[in-house]
């Protein structure tokens, strides 16, 4: 059974239909990516999933209906979003940012274990734990955003363009981490413009074009699909 089930998701901003009925499933432990060009509606899918925008259709997570629930309630149910543009709390320290990630949790010992895990995953965050998050570099901020999302002990991680605006070396580092987190059993839905990267790390992929899913399948297959190669991999 799939952990996340999305049926006929629709998102509209006024008269503009950004998402026109997307079906999508993610199984427990899977890393699935959603790729597409600018303005294809990828981020709107994520925003719809976590209730940041009004949406039609149905979203189920672990059998429970998420549609219509407020964002904070969805976060508490085990879905953690790493927002586009990272959304770190710039005037709080790295440590305070991580603590905010565990905002909905009451089990202190488990939170401490997760904090250790995040610091192991990103030694740089441990070095800079007392530093204000806004002074970190872009890549470090992305690490912090992912670390903060992990602090909620999520069953599922939603990543919105983690490579955005980062130097190639940093992108590589972030993707290594994503693979590692997925390896630890966290289910991930990854939204990415960089199709090449996303297809390499994911097991399955959905391709979006003007608000609709036009293709989906195993990432390895999509990578050899001539259409995809022409449209997204620059060949």
């Amino acid at each position: 059974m799939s952990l996340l089930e999305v049926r006929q998701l629709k998102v509209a901003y006024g008269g503009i239909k950004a998402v026109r009925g997307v079906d999508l499933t993610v199984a427990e432990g899977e890393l699935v990516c959603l790729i597409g060009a600018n303005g294809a509606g990828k981020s709107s899918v994520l925003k719809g999933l976590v209730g940041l925008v009004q949406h039609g259709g149905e979203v189920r997570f672990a059998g429970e209906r998420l549609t219509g629930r407020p964002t904070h309630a969805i976060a508490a149910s085990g879905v953690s979003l790493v927002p586009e543009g990272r959304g770190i709390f710039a005037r709080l320290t790295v440590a305070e940012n991580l603590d905010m990630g565990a905002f909905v949790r009451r089990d202190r010992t488990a939170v401490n274990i997760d904090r250790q895990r995040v610091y192991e995953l990103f030694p740089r965050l441990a070095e800079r734990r007392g530093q204000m998050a806004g002074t970190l570099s872009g890549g470090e901020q992305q690490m912090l955003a992912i670390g903060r999302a992990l602090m909620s002990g999520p069953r599922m991680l939603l990543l919105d363009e983690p490579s955005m605006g980062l130097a190639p070396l940093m992108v590589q580092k972030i993707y290594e981490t994503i693979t590692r987190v997925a390896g630890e059993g966290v289910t991930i839905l990854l939204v990415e413009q960089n199709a090449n990267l996303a297809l390499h790390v994911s097991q399955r992929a959905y391709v979006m074009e003007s608000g609709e899913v036009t293709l989906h399948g195993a990432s390895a297959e999509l990578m050899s699909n001539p259409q995809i190669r022409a449209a997204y991999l620059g060949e």
Partner: protein
Amino acid sequence: MRRKPQIAFFWLSVLLVALPFLTGAALGNSWVRVLDFALLYVMLALGLNIVVGYAGLLDLGYVAFYALGAYLYAWLASPHFGVHLPFWAVLPLGAALAGLFGVLLGAPTLRLRGDYLAIVTLGFGEIIRIFMNNLNAPVNITNGPQGINLIDPVALGGFRFAGTQQVLGVSLPSTYLFYYLFLAFTLAAIFIAMRLQDSRIGRAWAALREDEVAAAAMGVNTRNLKLLAFAMGATFGGLAGGLFAAFQGFISPESFNLWESILILCMIVLGGMGHIPGVILGAVLLTVLPEALRYIGDWQRHAFGHVYVDPSDLRMLLFGLALVLMMVYRPAGLIPSRQRKREFAAEDGVAEQEQASLYDARG
């Protein structure tokens, strides 16, 4: 090693208790009244600091809550309606009414931020003032621009805060008595503001201020927390309003104009937004300094035999100058919070740091 803060705390207490006597002896009793106002403004600034400093919601209509607290006090403890409820009953009611209006203002503005929120709150402040100005017909509720007079003096268990009273063999004018009453409320307000900042709610407010979407994604109920910030801030305002009405014995819409809202906001900005010691300092400075500048008129008369520059004009000029200088030299405020200090100080290092972290990304 813990002795030192205790000693400092002891001397601070002695100073706070002795302050009206020291001030009265050195500068005259009219200055004790200034002290009373300083304490009122500290309460107001602490309240606005919850909304602006903690939760990051720019509120330019804060004085409306001050007005509501004051008017409720006047309605329930004056000959205006012939109702004379006791101080301890009216004050919480005024605070509660203001808190309720805080939620009423907060609810329609939940989606607004920054300048848009500022404009709506500014409008709200003006609406309340204009209502107070015009609700004298057909039914006389606020007595219009004349305001409400003869508000009952504060009485606590038979002890009246009016005229000169004998306390422990010392005769104290009412301004002294109000100083101690206000001091008690101010200390309580400081305590509550401190506890709020360190609480789970305080952390959620900080997250909300920094990034609303991310805060919601962390499980923060952004709607309720915004409403709570408005309600808490408004409650402080309503409380201060009630105390103001009881202290003055007279209120009119004129006391609650836009300038007051801006003044309170300036106190926070000048002292250091979000940081309690800074907010207190800002409130005290901006209450005391304009009063001190009144002497410039006397000084001119002594020196030149004529007043060339009206002190009240000069006050505004110096006030503006002080704010400009502060923005240039201490942009984070006089006593900035740890966070804001970091924000303003770190900027030089950031670029180098970003460079460095690009090259050792594998680390």
